[in-house]
């Protein structure tokens, strides 16, 4: 293992566990400033996690082991998913490989666990939220897979290390397919992170909730795991966006520096989108995601028309 790989592994763990809450915190902070409010500090999610960690849990009745295992399952899948994502084109072999398709599966598994938990307790808002989440998830997963397929066309591999290495080359951006994939991935990020216009993370209105709904029943440490998982999801997708789409020089340190610059930039982009766009009507969201699928299909067509190998 080279020093770069070891360092990448450290960033993977440290970033996912310790830096991740800073991302939604920064988005919330910037959003408040854009709206003319002082807003919470970017560190607010850490305070929330500390508060929840000290609180005792309240468990609904009736419930089964499905409800109890969901927070650990969600947190576990996201931790493993974070270990798949390379940092600066490097990643140690944790024994799980770096296949993008595994990542798609892990994200789906986390979603499945929380939907099952909502079903287990049978709370109306949990079920409504989970139902909406799954309704969106079907096209979101399809688009994410298509993005992976489009990106895998030049290298013929869905390995994230290979895909990340490809992005460091200038040639990648000479392909229209790469641009299309970037656009579609942007839609995936909005949907996966539950941000406006897909979902409103700030809402207190139970009837409009998507991702928040199934979390309503949880309290204490269980909720802390789930809140951390939301932050980890931000980390994974925003790091992935950087690794797959941001052009950068080859050396490892330069790549890490790019990542350090790109993450705050993504936070700004999310805050601006969330401030300028109202939340969509709930049944229009699949149409938005469908647009992402159409873009990917155009990318595939363009690749073949241009005679890609």
């Amino acid at each position: 293992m080279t020093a770069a790989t070891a360092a990448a592994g450290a960033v993977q763990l440290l970033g996912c566990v310790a830096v991740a809450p800073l991302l939604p915190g920064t988005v919330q902070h910037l959003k408040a400033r854009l709206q003319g409010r002082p807003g919470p500090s970017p560190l607010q999610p850490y305070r929330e996690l500390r508060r929840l960690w000290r609180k005792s849990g309240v468990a609904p009745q009736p419930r089964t082991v499905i409800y109890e295992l969901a927070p650990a399952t969600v947190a576990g899948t996201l931790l493993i998913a974070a270990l798949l994502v390379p940092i600066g084109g490097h990643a140690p072999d944790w024994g799980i490989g770096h296949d993008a398709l595994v990542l798609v599966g892990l994200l789906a598994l986390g979603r499945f666990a929380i939907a099952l938990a909502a079903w287990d307790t049978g709370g109306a808002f949990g079920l409504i939220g989970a139902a909406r989440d799954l309704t969106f998830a079907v096209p979101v997963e399809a688009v994410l897979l298509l993005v992976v397929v489009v990106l895998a066309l030049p290298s013929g591999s869905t390995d994230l290390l290979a895909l990340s290495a490809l992005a460091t080359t200038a040639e990648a951006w000479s392909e229209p397919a790469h641009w299309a994939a970037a656009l579609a991935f942007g839609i995936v990020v909005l949907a996966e992170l539950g941000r406006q216009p897909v979902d409103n993370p700030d809402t207190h209105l139970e009837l409009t909730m998507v991702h928040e709904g199934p979390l309503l029943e949880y309290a204490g440490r269980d909720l802390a795991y789930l809140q951390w998982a939301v932050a980890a999801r931000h980390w994974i997708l925003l790091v992935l966006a950087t690794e797959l789409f941001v052009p950068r020089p080859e050396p490892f340190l330069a790549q890490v520096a790019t990542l350090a610059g790109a993450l705050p930039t993504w936070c700004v982009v999310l805050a601006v989108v969330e401030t300028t766009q109202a939340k969509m009507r709930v049944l229009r969201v699949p149409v938005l995601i469908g647009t992402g699928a159409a873009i990917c299909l155009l990318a595939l067509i363009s690749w073949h028309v241009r005679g890609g190998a």
Partner: protein
Amino acid sequence: MTARPDGASGPRSAAAITRVAPAGWRPACLRAHADGARFAGLFGAPRGGRAVELRAVFSTPAGERVIACETPERAVESVVDVLPAAAWDEREAHDLHGVRFVGHEPLRPLLDHDAALERWTVPVAGRDAHQVAVGPVHAGVIESGHFRFHVVGELILSLDLRLFYKRRGLEAAATGRPAEDAIAYAQRACAACAVTSSVACAQACEAALGLAPDDELRRARTVLLELERVYNHLHDISAICAGVGFAPGAAAYAALKERVQRLNLRLAGHRFLFGSVRLGGSDLAPAAADVADARAQLRTTGDEHAALWRQLHFSRSLQERLDAVGVLGRDDAERLGAVGPAARAAGLRRDVRSESTRLCYGGFAPVTPAVPAGDVASRMTQRAIELEQSLAVLDELLADPPAPGRTRAIGPTAAVAVGRVESPRGATTCLVELDGRRLRALHLRTGSYANWPSLVHAVPGSLLADFPLINKSFELCYACVDR
């Protein structure tokens, strides 16, 4: 828009009262309805023994008509088949005073919360239909209200409401107090409509005491009412923007509302204009410099509103959420007795301000949107155009600083009188019964009370996720319907 010369088309005296026997209740109500009078409320009050006094208020451009009926058997024929607007009133009179309304079937409980689910909800049958219950405890800071939806997936089939979670006893507490105290009780029904309820109560008491306001008193009360409308409408537009997560609109209109509330504080000493209305006169006399400054600030508010409104109009992601959601048709609005911006947005060109002889609205004409579609977009547009109208009224009334006003005796006293005032949410009716100078009864039927049934009617056919938005577009109050 100047005050009418005192006495020329002066304030009407107390309401015309028709007293009927229980058997004559329904025919008398139906006759009033057939004559073109609009239903404006039905109130019950206990009398000695088992008897209950029922009073129905009908409003005509010439004044209010009250049909009164003492029923020892506590039973009259229902009018709900002809006047669906009276449905909540009859249900309330039944739950509070045990009056049976023969022919009102099923007479679902309204205030009575002990009833089984099947008794107070409308049955829905069919494949995949299920219930979603929301409240009375909500995830945010929202008043207690229980909403029970029947849905298929995201589609709402029907909605049942259960409000009345607080026992306030305002009307009971007011009974027996001196007439001067009545306003204190009416005002506390609801903070956002405090001036409206106060003025309605003041007008009713003054009509009963045979008093008429002078020009200064009319002007002062009109200024207060319009200040209340301006900050409420600004708030409601902000709330609709916040309901769809459109932060720029929500923040900008919230800032305008804050500015107007600070003006309220400077002009009348209270951000919600509490304590600014009293019986028989007005002490509102702000300094000339404050009034001139307020007038300038209101003009700026109007300009900023116009600019912001144009921006909202061209914000596609916002407009997409508002169109064709929560539609209240014109005929339904008429039938259900909808009032205020909700009724005007559905095309009913009707506003108590145009017939308020005890206020200073000379030549007032109600406005409606160009296309009164009765949806969320129309209700928001309605508020935007009413804002311009209210700011114009204020600009004219504040040309000179308000001076203390008073009343003078114009006619005989009456035991029962009615005051009707247009609140930011619609027509508010206040009926008082005086025994000398003491209150024998005080009844308040606010614009919110009148509009809740219309909200229930506007919801089916929309998506569950859109309900909070539809609710905000009506922006009804929970507290002032509590009994």
